[in-house]
């Protein structure tokens, strides 16, 4: 008997297909899936979080230790002034029962202000210094209070947490510190639609309190000038969460035109102690500022 091994043709046990074909199909497929998944999770998380009652949101906010970060007692008059304006605006915006907004003053050069969970809004000295009159300050406060009113901080936190849980589940990471990472003073990212909603509410409040919109658009001009000063220019609209400054200024005018509200009117000056309170910076010790947190 004769034994022989026949010649076996290639590519029976292996695929003739180019490996890059398989690779690109899989890669595109998984990126698409990942995007759909992230969007769904973010949307679902935001939706679920918006169902959290405000009283529970306050409890969540209380989990963070505020004492270290906030409320410069160097300017009690200023803080009281900000709070009184906040209360006035809260009334004008008809905040739901039990929703109390607390204004905080942060002695830091950052040109920014933000709202976070538990109805806390934070104003940096850097931005307050640049405000020319009370109308602009009210616009700024109204914008941040509107974020609280529409539950933007908890929605944003909710989406953030759900998305990070999703990523952790996918990558098998054991990130047990999801809540801790997103601290109280973390500037939450709001979507462009959220910013626009708040801008509109700010315009309404400004009209309700002063009877005209003068001074409102100046807030966005401040941001615009600041960006130009920094030389950063405006980032491309698609990648920016805030609408372009020009668009926001224009948006203000559009609202005025649609509603028939005056864009000119008498500006209310800031109180006398305002500038001096901002200048009193000789504190015994530097408080922890948001940037280092």
């Amino acid at each position, binding site marked *: 008997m004769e*034994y*022989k*091994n026949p*010649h076996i043709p290639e590519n029976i*046990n*292996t695929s003739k297909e180019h*490996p890059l074909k398989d*690779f690109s199909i899989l*890669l595109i497929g*998984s990126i698409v899936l990942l995007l759909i998944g992230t969007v769904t999770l973010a949307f679902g998380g935001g939706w679920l979080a918006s169902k959290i009652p405000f009283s529970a949101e306050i409890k969540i906010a209380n989990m963070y230790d505020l004492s270290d970060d906030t409320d410069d007692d160097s300017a009690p008059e200023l803080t009281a002034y900000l709070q009184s304006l906040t209360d006035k605006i809260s009334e004008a915006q008809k905040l739901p029962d039990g929703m109390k907004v607390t204004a905080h003053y942060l002695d830091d050069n950052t040109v920014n202000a933000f709202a976070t969970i538990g109805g806390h809004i934070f104003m940096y000295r850097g931005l307050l210094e640049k405000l020319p009159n009370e109308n602009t300050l009210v616009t700024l406060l109204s914008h941040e209070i509107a974020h609280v009113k529409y539950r933007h901080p908890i929605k944003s936190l909710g989406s953030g947490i759900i998305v990070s849980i999703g990523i952790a589940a996918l990558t098998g990471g054991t990130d047990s510190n999801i809540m801790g990472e997103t601290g109280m003073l973390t500037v939450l990212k709001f979507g462009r639609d959220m910013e626009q909603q708040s801008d509109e509410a700010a315009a309404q409040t400004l009209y309700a309190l002063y009877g005209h919109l003068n001074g409102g658009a100046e807030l966005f001009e401040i941001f615009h000038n600041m960006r130009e000063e920094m030389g950063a220019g405006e980032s491309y609209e698609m990648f920016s969460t805030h609408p372009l400054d020009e668009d926001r200024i224009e948006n203000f005018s559009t609202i005025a035109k649609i509603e028939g509200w005056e864009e000119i009117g008498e500006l209310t000056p800031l109180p006398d102690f305002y500038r001096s309170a901002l200048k009193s910076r000789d504190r015994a010790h530097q408080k922890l500022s948001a940037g280092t947190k």
Partner: protein
Amino acid sequence: MYELILTVVLVSLGYIFGRRAESKHYKSIIMREKEMNTLPAMASRRPPSDGHYDQALVSGSVVIANDYFKSFVAGLRNLFGGQMRSYETLLDRARREAVLRMKQEAKTLGAEAIFNVKYETSNISGQTRKKMPVIEVHAYGTALTKYGI
């Protein structure tokens, strides 16, 4: 961002070098298979009955490592399921190389054929969480060497 760049670099390096190594290996396998074809390897357990043979255990084993590109594709494939084509060539090469090494051993014994050929495959990548597949394929059989009547 840094991690993304690192992954892209690793995947491209894995692709370039893995593909080069693979085509080189295949060329060498095909060439040596032709040479070794004079020495048949049979799965049959029954040795030929016409004559007297010395029997000896011969074996060939090969350890083959994966490249980053292949593991990356396999990782993606894990999400969707289906044929893991990227590993097919890896195992195919390993099996054929193991048989070739076994035949080489049998040839030095002056064998005429190898019977009862079997394969063993094992994963030796260890217990680490992010393991790169490293496999060992072991082929063994009974080499038959004819001796005078």
